């Protein structure tokens, strides 16, 4: 078990190293950031000076070495636009994104798992077919369009939810959160709902597939032969077996949610990471993009790691290996 954990940790570091190379290379192709820092009427000499200060005049391997060294010390450079350390900017926006992502995840789990279990346990029923068709529509919807429709209906037409912003925040543990205020919740509902739809559909389909697989198993019938009720068998014996694949998907979806938060945050003017990212892309604010990418990569790798650990906890068969 310890050996396995160490092996996984080592893998994580290797992947993050590879990601840092890729991010670095990608950034080198993303236009010339020097024009972001110099005034429009800068002279050649001023530009060359700026280039030197930014380290852009060195060779690629040298630039990468500097990049890596800075990164390991937590120094990603300053944002060209905000003139603040890029890491601080990102960390400041992180809670807002985490809020909508976590709320979206919970929303999709709360809706998808029971519906998926139902559809998987009663595959022939009309309700199950309706659920499955609904989930297919969910996968087929462009999430940004759904967000717009929600804004149009709930904000423009009926005026029941605000269309943008985070609402009131309170400071908890040094950062500002919306989920601890009523107004914050009022603001968080629409963006999180928008974000959750795709994940909801996918989770639902995986849960159903897992459930259908499980209902065919002998141990389900054996449990019924012991006198356990149909519901008891489904939830007591089936659900946990069926949810094993769901855990993986849950992990992967968390990553997707962070990615799609860029779009949702743009629509709802939600001041999170995604909005910052899009703004930074428009302004070629390289350091911010780099921190974002590295942060997202780290989150991904850590989630995958946690999912694997969670697996061994859910499935005793893996624990022994």
């Amino acid at each position, binding site marked *: 078990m310890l050996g396995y954990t160490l092996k996984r940790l080592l893998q994580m570091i290797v992947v993050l190293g590879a990601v840092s190379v890729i991010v670095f290379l990608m950034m080198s192709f*993303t236009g010339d950031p020097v024009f972001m820092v110099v005034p429009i009427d800068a002279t050649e000499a001023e530009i060359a000076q700026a280039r030197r200060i930014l380290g852009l005049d060195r060779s690629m391997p040298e630039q990468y070495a500097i990049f890596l060294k800075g990164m390991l010390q937590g120094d990603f450079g300053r944002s060209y636009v905000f003139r603040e350390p890029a890491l601080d900017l990102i960390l400041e926006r992180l809670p807002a994104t985490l809020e909508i992502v976590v709320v979206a995840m919970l929303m999709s789990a709360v809706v998808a798992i029971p519906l998926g279990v139902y559809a998987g346990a009663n595959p022939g029923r009309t309700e199950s077919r309706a659920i499955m068709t609904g989930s*297919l529509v969910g*996968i087929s919807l*462009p999430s940004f369009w759904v967000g*717009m429709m929600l804004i*149009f209906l709930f904000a423009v037409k009926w005026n029941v939810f605000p269309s943008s912003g985070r609402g009131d925040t309170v400071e908890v543990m040094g950062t500002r959160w919306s989920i601890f205020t009523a107004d914050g919740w009022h603001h968080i509902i629409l963006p999180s709902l928008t974000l959750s739809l795709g994940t909801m559909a996918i989770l639902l389909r995986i849960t159903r597939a897992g459930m259908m697989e499980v209902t065919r198993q002998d141990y389900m019938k054996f449990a019924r032969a012991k006198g356990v009720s149909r519901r008891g068998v489904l939830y007591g014996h089936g659900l946990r077996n069926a949810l094993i694949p769901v855990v993986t998907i849950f992990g992967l979806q968390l990553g997707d949610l962070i990615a799609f938060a*860029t779009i949702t945050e*743009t629509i709802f003017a939600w001041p999170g990471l995604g909005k910052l990212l899009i703004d930074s*892309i428009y302004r070629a604010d390289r350091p911010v*993009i780099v921190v974002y990418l590295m942060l997202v990569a780290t989150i991904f790798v850590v989630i995958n790691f946690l999912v694997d650990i969670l697996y061994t906890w859910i499935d005793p068969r893996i624990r022994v290996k």
Partner: protein
Amino acid sequence: MTAAFLSSEFVHNYRRNPSAIAGSAILVIFAVIVTLGPWLVWQDPYDIASLNLLDSYKPPMWLPGGDAAYPLGTDGQGRDLLAAIFYGTRVSVMIGLTAMAFSCLLGTAAGILAGYYGGVIDSVLMRIADVQLSFPSMLIALFLMSAFGTGVDKVLIALTAVGWVVYARTVRGQTLSEIEKEYVQAARVAGLSDTKIILRHILPNVTTPLIVVATVQVGTFILIEASLSFLGVGVPITQPSLGLLIKNGFDVLFSGLWWTSVFPGLFIMALVFGINLFGDFLRDELNPRLK
């Protein structure tokens, strides 16, 4: 041949599957829109001469102020929304299909190389695939586009870069299991060249699983392209896709001009839904394991 196909189990199951029929009906409608679209509407929405600014923001024809000449209403330049949607559908579908074809070619080639020759090629390709799979496709495409700038060709490159991995993985696995088989071993011993072995024995055996992947991927690509265009890093405004039409509609949504964004969205939804319905059927028929 045709008769045999018509009496096959595939066709039999298709006839009894309402979702598959509905899905393919939707796809047929879209095929007509894509091929004949420009001849189905009276206006070329991107010919400035045919636009009349006085007709801007007309609501759909069934609403007060609507005009039968513009069944789904008009946008800010007096452009017939239906015409814009038909043209936009063409852009979206062409991007989805072309990017799928590129991804499929590139990925299949990579998968065969990795599986057939193994060694360094295999390790390098599969490590790239691993790293790439640890990021969501949408995010990778977003970064590539932000590096490239807008353009249909650039969207195609970004989508291909995102899409090849799934083919490479599938084909590599399939190739590995095929070359173990005796007939391939025999062909090798008989001195058949690598190219011939790949073309005759390996390729035909990897196509079936790819059909399902490819079908669903067209839908995914259409959605990713729409998202990119919505964020302003997709197709240029001279060649608007459905996604870009929605973005244009978003700007006026708060003024209550809902139709400019609602209808393009409904079209994307119907299109991708049709693809997914049909893809689900194909998956069940061709590849029950992938369920």
